């Protein structure tokens, strides 16, 4: 069986990739994708911890993941709606051009 920490390292990497994407991308949709990657990294953690926990019958981690996938979907829906709202005003989704609020 693959040891637990392999999964943890992988999820930490996935989280970092997502974070890097979210911080460096200028396109709002790509930032959103980065955030989804970060959420999925956390989901992977839950599954791994659940699988290696002393009593996997409790299904705690599994349940958490199912809920968090649903939440992530809702979040993507709201996010895309907001991106469309931005596009209507600015005709672009480039975040560096969306800068009327400052101070």
């Amino acid at each position, binding site marked *: 069986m693959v040891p637990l920490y392999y999964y943890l390292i992988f999820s930490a990497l996935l*989280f970092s990739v997502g974070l890097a994407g979210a911080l460096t991308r200028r396109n709002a949709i790509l930032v959103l994708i980065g955030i989804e990657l970060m959420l999925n990294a*956390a*989901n992977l*953690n839950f599954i791994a*911890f659940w699988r290696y926990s002393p009593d996997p019958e409790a299904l705690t981690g599994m349940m958490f993941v199912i809920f*968090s996938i649903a939440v992530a979907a809702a979040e993507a829906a709201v996010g895309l709606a907001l991106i469309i709202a931005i596009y209507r*005003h600015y005709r672009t989704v480039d975040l560096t051009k969306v800068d009327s*609020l400052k101070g």
Partner: protein
Amino acid sequence: MSGISYSEILKLVAPEMLVSLAALAVLAIDLLVMREAPQRYRFWTGAAFAGLGCGLAIAWLLAMNPPPHSMSAGLSLLQGTYADDVLVRLVKVALLVMTLFTLAISMESNFTDHIGEYLALILLATVGMMFLVSSENLLMVFISLELTSLSLYILTAFNKRNVESAEAALKYFLFGGMSAAFTLFGLSLVYGLAGSIQFSEIYSKLHAAKIDTLLLAAIVMTVIGFGFKIAAVPFHLWAPDAYQGAPTPSAAFIASGSKVASFFIFAKLMMQAFAGAEGNGAWRHFTPGWLPVVATVAACSMLLGNLAAIVQGNVKRLLAYSAIAHAGYALLGLLSNSQQGMSSLIYYIVTYGLTVLGAFGVVAIVEERTGDASISSFAGLGRRQPLLGLCMMVFMLSLAGIPPLAGFFGKFYLFTAAIGAGKDMGMLWLVIFAIAMSAVSLYYYLQVLKQIYVVPAVEDSRPIVVPVSSRIILSLLALVVVVLGCAPELLLGRLITAIKLASHQ
């Protein structure tokens, strides 16, 4: 769960159900019946139904006997998914009152045609906050946090004609999404370390554990998530933009209700689940744990919030930076890590929420009449509309912490709790810093008052006409701020009893 039937569960969650039903009813009535009616009339009907739902929920919370299973201690259902005790009920009542005031402030505004959706989202956000307050389970914390946040993102974007509103919402959303990911990752690590997602079990697993890197990472990531919700530095970047761009009633709601709920659950999580992993935040005696992390966040928030507020020219933006500073003060209550700290934290944040609701109410009216919320548009308000000027004076002085207003007593109690906590007054350095910073804050609050009372109105000095309903609401809020300042035991006495009862569990 053994020994509890579905009807009893339904009875317990009745307040949340009432508010959700009110949300659906408001949506249905507005879309089915009121579509053709004039805007004002629609807003009044919708807000009346929404208010009715909140009112019934408050009545239920106050009238129903505390948890049936035992007289004093609380009740925790389904592995902490739904906890109920006197303290939780008190905080829920405070949340519902803030929702009522938010509804009242929105009634006169005309930034949207989608009134049903707007009111329904306010109510859904409230449901999220209520569940958040009564959760003792990481899953429930995450879901209700997201329910609240997602509703608030949409409320921020609700002024579709305004570019700033959309931009503010996108920034709020992107920061919020990122912090949600951090929270979830932190919670997953907590689950991995403790093997459970229930607060009490996490405590029993972790309180004896050595603080290693993984636990510290889990704590820091959880703090990041909540730090975002309460707008503490360095996770505050969304706040000024969101407050400025959002429609004023939405901003008021973000600043009041959502703050109260997030602070409460943040304190509960830290004090209950992570008790035993505190570390030490005393000056030059830092040991790893959550206390030094939160102490750093608090100090940064007070410093940056107060200094950045000085240079702001827009009152909504000024209130945002002052909110950051206030988050810093309120964290002192969490840092004292005691029952007294908890009661001072709740008292402070509830009175702050009411004050800031009133301030935003005044800003909403001025913004509507003069076109913007810049500090100069308040010039001569004291003569143009004396009542409004007086209310704003009460709110600003309370935020600055001038006796005999609620803000003063809140700060006083908070600082006392923080000084008394820990060995050898370890938090003294932070309290001294907080007092110094709150002296700084007086400058920018007085700047607003100077515009209102000293600077004459430039172009338009005619009196401002304010509807009777707004006058009543704002005077009521100002009155509450004064009364809670003069007689703090009205709220504080209840809080202390409730916390004592809750801790006997």
